């Protein structure tokens, strides 16, 4: 499982650690020598089960004299053969490496920097300057600048562009609605404008959920309660384009101006008036639940009104899974990939990392590799990767 040198180094490290913490153990208040020996015994036992250390009986045969020499004195000091006795029992276990092997593979990860590395989002690490200090400075400077704008900049542009055409109609409709709510008729235009965008932003903030719903156009079209108006009207005329919906809404709003204020309110009555088919009732109940999302509405619109709720569910089911599954699969692949990566792991210190175009070169030193269930130690390593 392990090269003899690696095993020797591990044994040496164990001895070294035990030796150097002995003071702490034996000192006043310390648990004492016995606990120290227990620690060493357990540790070595686990190392052997992991296959990281060869059997203690093989220790003398370790090629490197250094660790071997170090071992003997330590064993004189410790209770030397208690350890060996413990080792001999596990030797049988050594014959069945697979099961014990898995534990050591996973355990090192949480202890090392890996866990933190996972949590840290991948920052823009495209630094031409490889040196650590320069790289740090660059990272601090760049991250806030480059990282943030893109996510936040994108949402505004869509609704900014889409809003104006909708806004006009919406305002008209709202004037009447607002008046019922006892608001000034002159103000509604601006107020609507503000309320609209806020509703818009809220939706932008929760994109994943809505993507879960899976209908982008609905998000665009639906401002607040206004979205309901659009949807209902769409149901009748089934326009494909967004501009079409706008026209329809304006026309129908004129026709049924008295109903529009009711539409603003949560009461389902207006819907009933406009669409007398019973299906819509079902749809409305559904829609109340998913009010913000508005996803079910278009489905109904597109589909025949006959079995509305079922169709909604079915269509949603049909449409959503591909979207969600695709997303999830991608994420899952990445996650699984990351987890799988941990099976082959190299821990080291870097001397320098340089990049020329897509060609990366790095020099590492004093590292441990766990690859193909083998532990390999190295003093220096040079890597050449193409990205």
């Amino acid at each position, binding site marked *: 499982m392990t090269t003899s040198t690696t095993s020797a180094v591990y044994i040496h490290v164990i001895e070294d*650690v035990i030796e150097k913490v002995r003071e702490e153990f034996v000192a006043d208040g310390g648990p004492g020598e016995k606990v120290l020996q227990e620690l060493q015994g357990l540790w070595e036992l686990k190392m052997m089960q992991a296959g*990281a250390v060869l059997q203690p009986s093989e220790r003398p045969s370790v090629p490197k004299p250094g660790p071997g020499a170090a071992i003997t004195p330590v064993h004189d000091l410790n209770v030397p053969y208690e350890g060996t006795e413990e080792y001999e029992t596990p030797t049988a276990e050594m014959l069945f490496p697979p099961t014990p092997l898995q534990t050591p593979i996973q355990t090192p990860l949480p202890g090392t920097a890996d866990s933190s590395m996972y949590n840290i989002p991948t920052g823009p690490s495209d630094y031409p300057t490889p040196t650590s200090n320069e790289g740090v400075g660059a990272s601090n400077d760049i991250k806030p600048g480059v990282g943030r704008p893109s996510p936040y900049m994108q949402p505004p542009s869509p609704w900014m562009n889409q809003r104006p055409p909708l806004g006009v109609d919406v305002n008209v409709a709202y004037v009447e609605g607002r008046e019922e709510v006892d608001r000034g008729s002159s103000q509604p235009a601006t107020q609507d404008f503000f309320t609209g965008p806020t509703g818009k932003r809220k939706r932008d903030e929760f994109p994943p959920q809505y993507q879960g719903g899976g209908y982008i156009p609905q998000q665009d079209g639906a401002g607040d309660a206004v979205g309901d108006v659009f949807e209902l009207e769409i149901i009748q005329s089934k326009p494909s384009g967004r501009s079409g919906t706008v026209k329809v809404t304006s026309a129908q709003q004129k026709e049924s101006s008295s109903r529009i204020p009711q539409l603003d309110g949560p009461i389902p009555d207006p819907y009933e008036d406009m669409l007398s088919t019973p299906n819509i009732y079902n749809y409305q109940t559904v829609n109340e639940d998913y009010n913000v999302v508005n996803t079910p509405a278009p489905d109904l619109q597109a589909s025949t009104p006959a079995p509305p709720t079922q169709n909604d569910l079915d269509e949603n089911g049909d449409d959503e899974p591909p979207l969600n599954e695709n997303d999830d699969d991608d994420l899952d692949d990445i996650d699984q990939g990351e987890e799988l990566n*941990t099976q082959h792991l190299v821990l080291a210190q870097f001397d320098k990392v340089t990049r020329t175009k897509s060609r990366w070169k790095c020099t590492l030193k004093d590292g441990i*590799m766990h690859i193909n269930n083998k532990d390999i130690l190295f003093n220096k390593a040079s890597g050449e990767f193409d990205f």
Partner: protein
Amino acid sequence: MCLTETLDEMVQSGTLSPELAIQVLVQFDKSMTEALEAQVKSKVTIKGHLHTYRFCDNVWTFILQDALFKSEELQENVSRVKIVACDSKLLTQ
């Protein structure tokens, strides 16, 4: 790894105080680096397709695909491997 497991067990069973366990871990880090510097002389070359690179908090992380590890003794092929490296200058300080 094995040491942390051992320490965890002993701390939970009450035979070891957490403070002492930390000291042992710190000592392990020191001993391990010393041992790596003093006893390991092997040189390894790594080649592969760089899938991910990141440099955060002075730690480089590379995820390689189809990586080839070569040393004097052996040669290993790995479909995916993760390399985590911290700054050697910071450790020596």
